[in-house]
């Protein structure tokens, strides 16, 4: 007996005798199968929304604002020419972007290590979870503004303090999602591992942790976005030191340099989108093959 003779639930064998991958089929249906068509379907819809958004921007600016207000909402082409095409303006923006990106990445890296470690600890015993989780929630909800003098006092008002703010803001989703993932391992799986003499570390490493990866990546994507917010907000609080995007935004705002301010805003958004997207991509590479819904 060497043939697989019961029909697979998701379709019949194809010409090569392979089982069709359900997700591939769905993906193909949604995005088209090859080349230009695929690229067009991938990029087309968001591009269309972008064009619509810019159009609405121009219209609202013309209709709702009178001449004295218009400086508040510069025309998109002015933003591009002033903030991005003029090197004297672009240069500080790029420096600030680089600084904020570093703050966000350091903060995120620390959050990942710390968050996953804490979640692993909490997953090992209910009492650890009960005693630590409330404080993780508290950390998430504490008004950071109140902590800034303290953080600044101990860690200076520069890079390190901003990273700390970043960690405070981006830590919780990683803890919550990792813990959820670790605790969702099926009881039947635990039984199976126990039957074959696996201790809790083996179960953690071979059962709970791999099973938690989809949830962990969900947390990572949320925290990736938050870490960028953390980097900008950190700037607002610690106005000393090298300027990041947050410092530039407040400066341009007070000097009524709207084009540059929107330029900084756009950089901040792009940074957030790119980190979110990168983690989505890594997640897809790591768990896309087997997880029910590719993250």
């Amino acid at each position, binding site marked *: 007996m060497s043939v697989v003779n*019961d029909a697979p639930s998701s379709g019949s064998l194809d010409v090569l005798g392979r089982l069709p991958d359900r997700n591939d089929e769905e993906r193909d249906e949604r995005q088209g199968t090859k080349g230009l068509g695929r690229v067009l379907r991938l990029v087309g819809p968001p591009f269309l929304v972008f064009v619509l958004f810019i159009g609405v921007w121009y219209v609202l600016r013309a209709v709702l604002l009178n001449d004295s207000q218009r400086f508040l909402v510069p025309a998109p082409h002015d933003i591009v020419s002033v903030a991005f095409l003029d090197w004297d303006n672009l240069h500080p923006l790029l420096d600030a972007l680089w600084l904020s990106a570093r703050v966000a990445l350091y903060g995120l890296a620390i959050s990942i290590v710390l968050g996953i470690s804490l979640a692993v600890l909490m997953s090992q015993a209910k009492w650890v979870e009960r005693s630590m989780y409330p404080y993780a929630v508290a950390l998430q909800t504490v008004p950071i503004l109140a902590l800034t003098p303290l953080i600044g006092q101990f860690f200076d008002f520069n890079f390190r303090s901003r990273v700390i703010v970043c960690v405070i803001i981006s830590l919780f989703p990683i803890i919550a999602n990792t813990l959820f993932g670790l605790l969702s391992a099926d009881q039947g799986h635990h039984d199976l591992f126990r039957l074959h003499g696996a201790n809790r570390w083996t179960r953690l490493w071979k059962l709970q942790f791999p099973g938690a990866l989809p949830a962990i990546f969900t947390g990572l994507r949320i925290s990736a976005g938050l870490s960028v917010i953390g980097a900008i907000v950190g700037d607002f609080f610690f106005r000393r030191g090298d300027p990041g995007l947050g410092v530039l935004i407040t400066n341009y705002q007070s000097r009524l340099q709207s084009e540059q301010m929107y330029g900084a805003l756009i950089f901040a958004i792009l940074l957030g989108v790119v980190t979110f997207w990168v983690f989505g991509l890594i997640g897809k590479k790591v768990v896309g093959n087997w997880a029910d819904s590719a993250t």
Partner: protein
Amino acid sequence: MSTTVPSSELPPTTSTTSTDPPTLAFRGISMTFPDGTQAVDDVSFDVAPGEFVTVVGPSGCGKSTLLRIASGLTKQTRGTVTVDPNALGYVFQDPTLLQWRTVRGNVELLAELHGVPKAERRRRAQSAIDLVGLSGAEAKYPKQLSGGMRMRASLARSLVMQPKVFLFDEPFAAVDEITRERLNDELMRLFAQEHFAGLFITHSISEAVFLSTRVLVMSARPGRILGEFAVPFPYPRVPDLRFEPVFAELSGQVSHVLREAHG
């Protein structure tokens, strides 16, 4: 051919003429859960080497609890179980495959947990995969498999450890009738070929009669053994056995006792 006597009066009979000590023995097993529900009450029987015993009974009568007790996952309130825990294979109701491992990775899992060297476990996994008819699907993930194929993978995973006793907890309850019969045919073939003993839980009478050397009928909760039927058909049994009059007659007798069990 059939007897319907209280289990306590049954001698530890086996239909196979083996003089070896039983591979699995239940003696006066009772189980009461902490919430007060009594799952099984004074259950005693043996599974001899090379014997395939099936327990049928109404849902929730504590059949599965027996397997959990045999494997040590649940501790019985009273009575003793004799079995070599290292010689046990346990096939759960769900395939319990690890989603992130391919068929090969899943089949290798138990050998890996027991520290079998990589090359050896690769070799054993491959022969188990061939044995259950999953050749060619080694690199697939569970979500790409049908229900029947997942069950085969689960079976292969246990086969790798070459257990002397297999515990089957309604393994084919979730697959359709045709697939179930096919899997029964193959389990039959494996049983004849690999010489393990089996303790099989099901609520399908035809499955019970087709597979077993002996069928035990259990009562509704708290579970007691109500009847015992020796199944005389020689192995290997052919699929068409299911349509023979003798098969129908025996199934009918089991069914009658099972009706009583439902009360």
